[in-house]
C-alpha cells in the first residue's frame, strides 16, 4: 500500500486532535472529540467536515448536456442553471459505477462530484464513453478542497462570514464566486447528513484558513469539527446510500431502492435496457430497513438468514446514535422484503432476530 494522500487540511486535523485513519487512500480524521458527540452536534447545532477527498470533474463542450444524458441515469435536460441533482452512473448491465452530484452552470458546462475511491475509475469511464460527443473531461480534484458545514445552525454560522444572502440559495442549488471571509468559494445547499447545510468548494490554499474561520464563527452555536465516523452514521440514519455498501457494480439502482433517480422515460442512457428489463420482470432482491428485536449490533457484511438459509447481507448497520436503536439496511431476497417480516442477523457465532421496517429511520430536516 502506498502512503495515504493528505488533504490541504491534514495539519488542521492534527491540530484539532483528530484521530487520523486511512480512508479510500486518504489520511482523514475518523473523529475528533468522539463519534456520538459529533453526530449529536450535527443533528442539533452544526458540524464541519473535510470532504476534500471527493473527486470533482468538469464537463465542458457544446454537447455536454447530451453527453451526460447518455452517461447517467437521472435527467439533466430539465435542470436549471445553478441547480444540483443527485444521480447514479451505471454499466450496461445496470450495475452501479458510482453515485454523484451534477452541478449545472450552463448547457455547455457542468461539474460532477464523485466518490474518492472511485475517482480514477470514474474519470476513465467518462473518457471511455465520450464517443462522438463534443466534450472535454477535466479531472480538477487535486485543485479543489471541499468542506461540508451541516446542521440546523449551518446557515446562521456561514452567514456571519459572507455578504451573500444564503437564504436565497434553495435546496440543491449553488452559487459561484461567493466571498467567504475574503476567499472565493462555490457553495451549494447540499449535504450527506439529512440536515440542512452547505458544501463549500475552494482553492487548496484557502482551505485551512476557512476551516478555522468557520469553526470560530460557530463557536457560540455549538459547532464541532466532525470526522468520517459520524459522517457515516448520519448519512445512514437519513437513508442516504454509501458506495461500497448500498451501491456497487453488483447492485442496480432499482435493487438499492433509488429508482427515483433513474429516469427510464428519457432517451437512451447506459444501463437503460438492463434496468427496463429488470423493472419489467420484477426485482428478485432489494434493500430493506430492519430493526433488531434481540440484542446485538448489525454490521456491514453480516449474513441475513431466514428459514435456516442465507437470504441476504447487511449493507450498513449501527447502534443508531439518534434513535438509540440497533438498526440496519440489508439486501434480501424479495420474498423476505415485506414490512414486519422476521429475519435473523448472523452476529459472530449467534443469530439474533430482527424485523423488516421502513428505511426512513430519520426524517430529513431539509430547508426546501
Amino acid at each position, binding site marked *: 500500500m502506498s502512503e495515504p494522500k493528505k488533504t490541504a487540511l491534514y495539519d488542521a486535523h492534527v491540530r484539532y486532535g483528530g484521530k487520523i485513519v486511512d480512508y479510500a487512500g486518504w489520511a482523514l480524521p*475518523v*473523529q475528533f472529540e*468522539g*463519534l*456520538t458527540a459529533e*453526530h449529536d452536534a450535527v443533528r442539533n447545532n452544526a458540524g464541519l467536515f473535510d470532504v476534500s477527498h471527493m473527486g470533482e470533474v468538469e464537463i465542458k463542450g457544446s454537447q455536454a448536456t447530451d453527453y451526460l444524458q447518455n452517461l447517467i441515469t437521472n435527467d439533466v435536460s430539465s435542470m436549471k442553471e445553478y441547480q444540483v441533482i443527485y444521480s447514479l452512473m451505471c454499466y450496461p448491465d445496470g450495475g452501479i459505477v458510482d453515485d454523484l452530484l451534477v452541478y449545472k452552470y450552463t448547457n455547455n458546462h457542468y461539474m460532477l462530484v464523485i466518490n474518492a475511491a472511485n475517482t480514477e475509475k470514474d474519470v476513465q469511464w467518462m473518457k471511455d464513453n465520450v464517443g462522438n460527443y463534443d466534450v472535454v473531461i477535466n479531472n480538477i480534484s487535486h485543485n479543489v478542497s471541499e468542506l461540508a458545514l451541516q446542521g440546523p445552525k449551518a446557515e446562521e454560522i456561514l452567514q456571519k462570514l459572507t455578504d451573500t444572502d444564503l437564504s436565497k440559495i434553495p435546496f440543491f442549488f449553488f452559487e459561484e464566486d461567493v466571498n467567504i471571509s475574503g476567499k472565493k468559494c462555490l457553495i451549494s445547499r447540499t449535504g450527506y447528513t439529512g440536515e440542512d447545510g452547505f458544501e463549500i468548494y475552494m482553492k487548496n490554499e484557502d482551505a485551512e484558513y476557512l476551516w478555522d474561520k468557520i469553526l470560530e464563527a460557530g463557536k457560540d452555536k455549538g459547532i464541532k469539527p466532525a470526522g468520517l*465516523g459520524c459522517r457515516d*452514521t448520519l448519512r445512514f440514519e437519513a437513508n442516504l446510500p454509501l458506495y461500497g455498501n448500498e451501491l456497487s457494480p453488483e447492485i442496480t439502482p432499482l435493487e438499492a431502492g433509488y429508482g427515483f433517480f433513474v429516469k427510464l422515460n428519457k432517451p437512451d442512457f447506459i444501463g437503460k435496457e438492463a434496468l427496463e428489463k429488470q423493472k419489467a420482470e420484477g426485482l428478485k432482491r432489494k434493500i430493506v430497513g430492519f430493526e433488531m428485536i434481540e*440484542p*446485538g*449490533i448489525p*454490521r456491514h457484511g453480516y449474513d441475513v438468514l431466514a428459514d435456516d438459509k442465507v437470504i441476504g447481507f447487511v449493507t450498513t448497520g*449501527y*447502534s443508531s*446514535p439518534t434513535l438509540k436503536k*440497533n438498526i440496519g439496511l440489508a439486501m434480501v431476497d424479495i420474498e423476505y422484503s415485506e414490512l414486519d417480516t422476521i429475519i435473523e442477523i448472523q452476529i*459472530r457465532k449467534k443469530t439474533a432476530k430482527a424485523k423488516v421496517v421502513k428505511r426512513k429511520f430519520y426524517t430529513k430536516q431539509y430547508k426546501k
Partner: protein
Amino acid sequence: MEVRNDLYYSNDHEWVSVEGNKAYVGITDFAQHSLGEIVYVELPEVGDELSAGDVFSVIESVKAASDSYMPVSGKIIEVNEELSDSPQLINEDPYGNWIVVVEMSDKSELDDLMNAEQYEEFCSKED
C-alpha cells in the same frame, strides 16, 4: 490515562486483578479511550473454559466491534451482567467494572503479563 499499580496487564489492554485463584478481568483506561463510547458488550457464558488468547468478549462502540482476549486460561465463573444494560460503565470506570471472573487453571501465566510500569511504557509506544 490511568494505570493502576496493583494490577496485571496484557498486550491487548486487558487488566487482571488476582484474588487467590480467581482473576477479575476488564479492559484498561487506554482501551476504553481508544474504543470510544461503548454501546454493547457481548459476554461469554458462565462455565466456558477458555485458554489465554481466546476471545472472551466483544466490545462494540458505534464505529466497530473489538474482540477482548483472555489474559489467562481458565473457567468463566462469573460475568458482569450489569454491562448488558449499561455498557457505558466501562467508559465511566474501566477499573471498577470487571467483565468476567476466571478461575485460573495455571497461575504461572500471570508471569507473562506486565506490571503497571511496563504497561505504561507499552502504551506510550502504541499511540
